[in-house]
């Protein structure tokens, strides 16, 4: 026979466990909603304060299947990684404009760019970028090539580019374009020239 006070204590503990579990689930759901809203709705923050300088963007045009250069202005920091990130964010911002020639999903962003040994750029994309990207060889290849060509055009020292998503490797952008590869900028530039 279990003493009555033990029964009460166990009942209280169990109800406490379930209460805390439900509360935690509730909090987790709210936090997830909040972060999702933040990820998808928040506008891209300006990269850095300071005078804007001209940068070259390689803009993809889905309809014609071509790539064209466009000059934009952006304030660029001195650090090569932050500078590369600012350039790519400007490109992503272009693609998020209304009537974009190559629309990207809302909330798409470049988390970071690490420039290793001055020549290898490691581009860390956010989840919204890949999860919201349209699927297809053509459209995915245009995105990858546009990012690489833009990066290289504004930092000629970069010879290779590697993509990560939230700091981790991912097989493909949206089922087709290779994100595991270490891209050779010279080869990509050859492809881009064929599309210009």
């Amino acid at each position: 026979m279990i003493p009555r006070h033990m029964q009460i204590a166990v009942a209280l503990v169990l109800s406490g466990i379930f209460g805390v579990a439900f509360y935690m689930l509730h909090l987790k759901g709210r936090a997830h909603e909040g972060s999702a809203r933040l990820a998808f709705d928040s506008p891209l923050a300006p990269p850095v304060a300071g005078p804007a300088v001209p940068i070259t963007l390689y803009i993809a045009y889905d309809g014609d299947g071509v790539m064209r250069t466009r000059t934009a202005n952006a304030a660029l920091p001195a650090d090569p990684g932050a500078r590369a990130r600012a350039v790519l964010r400007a490109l992503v911002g272009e693609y998020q404009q209304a009537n974009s020639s190559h629309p990207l999903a809302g909330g798409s962003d470049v988390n970071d760019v690490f420039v290793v040994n001055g020549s290898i750029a490691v581009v860390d994309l956010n989840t919204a970028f890949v999860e919201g990207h349209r699927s297809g060889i053509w459209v995915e290849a245009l995105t990858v090539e546009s990012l690489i060509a833009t990066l290289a055009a504004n930092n000629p020292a970069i010879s290779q580019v590697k993509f990560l998503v939230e700091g981790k490797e991912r097989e493909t952008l949206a089922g087709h374009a290779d994100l595991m590869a270490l891209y050779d900028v010279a080869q990509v530039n050859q492809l881009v020239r064929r599309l210009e």
Partner: protein
Amino acid sequence: MHLISSRLRPKLWLVQASGLILLFGVFATTFASWMEQKRLTVFSASSTFSVDITEADSQEYVSLNNLLAPLGQLEVSTGKNKIRLHFNSVEAQFENRESTANIGGHSIALGGRAIVEENRVMVPLSAIAHVLPRILSMRADYHQGSQRLFLGDAGTHFALELRKGEGTHLVLSFSVPVSPQISTESGKLKMVFANDPVAMASQSWQFDDSVITAAHYTDAAQPELVISGNQPLLATFADAGKSISVMPAPAVSSDSPSAAPAGQQIATGQPAEAPLPQPSANPASALASTESPGTIAPAAPQVRYLIAIDASHGGNEPGAALGQQLLEKDVTLAIARKLRSQLQVRGLDSVMVRDGDTTVSLDDRAALANTSHAAVYVALHAGNLGRGVRVYTSTLSSTDASPGLFVPWEKVQANFVRSSQVVASVIVDEFTKNETQVPVALFPAPVRPLNNVAGAALAVEVAPLRGNVESLTNTSYQDAVAEALAAALTSVRPKIEARQ
């Protein structure tokens, strides 16, 4: 109440922690059991499939309905606690909780109780080997270790023969072509027969040889043959996959980058462990130069012109959502089947990477093409952007080719990119002259898994013909694409065989 609470409060955290651990344990156990769902793989002359194994009364059971349905016409009728199965001309009757069944007028012991529920009957797994022959009128060979069931002559055995001499090698002879996944580590070569119907019991072999010393076959969930030696070993295929020779790997020489044994195709299914060696540029001449009179050399392979057709995506990976009800994986499978038929009409061999709605990883797709020694790998895709057909080759160039014996998995295609470009240009020519006027374009593009394929490899993306995405399901459009591809793959054959 206050008194009880204050007494128990110091231990409250302990009780809470115990509760949480208990809950976690329950969840973990449930998850683990779900993950480790046992399955019985059935090999028959017509198909290979698997059925779930469930546990009841401390015994393993399988659904007889699930076993019989893929093998022929099955009719089921039920009564109170009874079920009757009519398979072809045989009638089998099972009663719930009875340990015997009436099959074709004979009483058969089940070695356990049958479980009849709804429209199916579960029988003990141990009884399958003598229940099925009564119904199917063919032999059933159940291997408990690998949980595989071989019906009729579906299983294959292999014989080992150590051939000594200047080029000591171990020859494995199979009755049907096999494509094991091969990996190597120091002094050992492992072949995993994940998809091959090897029906053998676990056994070991010892060899009186200083190079290849032993072999051990394990009849497990992933049947494997491990060959031990005192030197690094490699495997080569011959006789259209019916013969595998294992021999010491040649030393890597900077003067002779193509040091792989002559005239052989070397397969691997485990790229991370055993990257593909660079193929010999001229297998025939290499064979002549390395073979000395009197030695028993492995038979020269019969080079098949085999097309690997990859219906991209599938299963949990639907690919692009082309329309509200239209998924890329369904379109690619439909075109792949049509392409297979067209190739058959033209007398070309082909292998489908998937022929159903199954999930296949990108690495596995390339591994399958490589282990089947496909001359051309065609990955079919569908997209709703643009019009017509786009053909893609790898972005690698021949200058990326590795000069060593082993090449990185991600650059395997570099050795074959010229062949890929040849095939792609012939496909473009074929579409250009095709009467259907399907627009066609050719691009290099970074498409997975082209870079991992050891053979001509290309991706073909089919877009709507005239802007209407529904045209992707149009039979005549799919036929036109399949016909043009098959015609191109036929006409390019001499060029590819010349390159081989």
